[in-house]
């Protein structure tokens, strides 16, 4: 398995904070929840109306989504299963090896 299947079920969410209140909410939320920032490169750089793309582990996706819904913060799922996305891309590698 690629990377020992460690990304199975992980997701990448795009969150778009509107207004200072939502920015503050996200900064506090990510103080206590470990996510991998794809953009911006850290919580301190989150600003209004700018996309926040975060990779969140499969154990935390539900919690994060619930918190965002309860705070009425808009988000979308960019990548629904990171492991599958990588396997899809490395599929060509395996065929290349055969070549």
């Amino acid at each position, binding site marked *: 398995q690629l990377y020992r299947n460690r990304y199975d079920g992980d997701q990448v969410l795009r969150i778009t904070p509107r207004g200072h209140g939502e920015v503050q909410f996200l900064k506090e939320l990510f103080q206590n929840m470990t996510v991998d*920032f*794809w953009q911006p490169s850290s919580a301190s*750089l989150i600003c209004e109306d700018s996309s926040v*793309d975060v990779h969140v582990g499969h154990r935390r996706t539900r919690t994060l989504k619930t918190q965002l819904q309860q705070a009425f913060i808009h988000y979308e799922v*960019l*990548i629904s299963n990171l492991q599958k*996305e990588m396997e899809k891309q490395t599929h060509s590698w395996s065929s290349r090896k055969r070549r």
Partner: protein
Amino acid sequence: SELQYNYEVYHPLGEIQRWMFEMNRTYPHLVDLFSIGRSYEGRPLYVLQLGNRSRHYRKAMWMDCGVHAREWISPAFCQWFVREALGSYQHDSTMRRLMNHLRIFVMPVFNVDGYHYSWKTDRFWRKTRSKNAKYHCRGVDANRNWKVKWCDEGASRHPCDDTYCGPFPESEPEVRAAARFLRKNRKRLQAYISIHAYAQMLLYPYSYKYATIPNFNCVETAAQNAVTALYSAHGVRYRYGPASTTLYVSSGSSIDWAYRHGVPYAFAFELRDTGHYGFLLPEALITPTCTETMRAVRSIALGLLRKC
């Protein structure tokens, strides 16, 4: 051999290093391969110097890729650029003129340890692989470790953060080696380009403050020409402007360091895409991304031969 090397796929570090030696062997009159130092884990930091070696040069340009390990499209572009520059020297008069009047230093993989780690262990690793004795977390953000407004706004002092600025400026051997080489060549360096992903932007100083650079008009025109050239390939729009307002404020960045050391044109590219795939940009998009970026970098390089 070089002819069989596949530029439309991602390659692990070993293959890229073998490719560098092959380019050096295949184009002895146009390429010089050397190491500017060693990484934290002891790997050589290779730079390819492109240009007609029989000609004297007064101007130079530097381009680094792979500063952040997971941004795989970045080293893919540096390889693409080298192939295009060398492969078209004979039949492309513009490229020949560039290579006869300009030395182009290309560092295909800046963060060699991190890039290797992103292939072997963690596909989403960003930083270097240095170890901090006091903390369990590894790595420093190589684009927050330069000695310019070091560890101010937009960088973190916490070793576990992705934007950790390091224990001191130029603490990372990779940053120290590049800074030493750039300082030594700064009189000839007219342009510094650093290739990142993703966001589809072309950024220039300042990153660490909301202010306008003194040669704003020349740099802004060069950036506008570059994104126009990029757009002409596949109709992809890149935003451009000062990094602090176009992306976010960050301190200790390489473009601010290069600009402060007298390089008049310092740019950071954020290549495709805008997030749909993010760092997992499919190999099928390497060709369109690299062809459009090639046009932008050519535009910047050609601008160096003219007076602004």
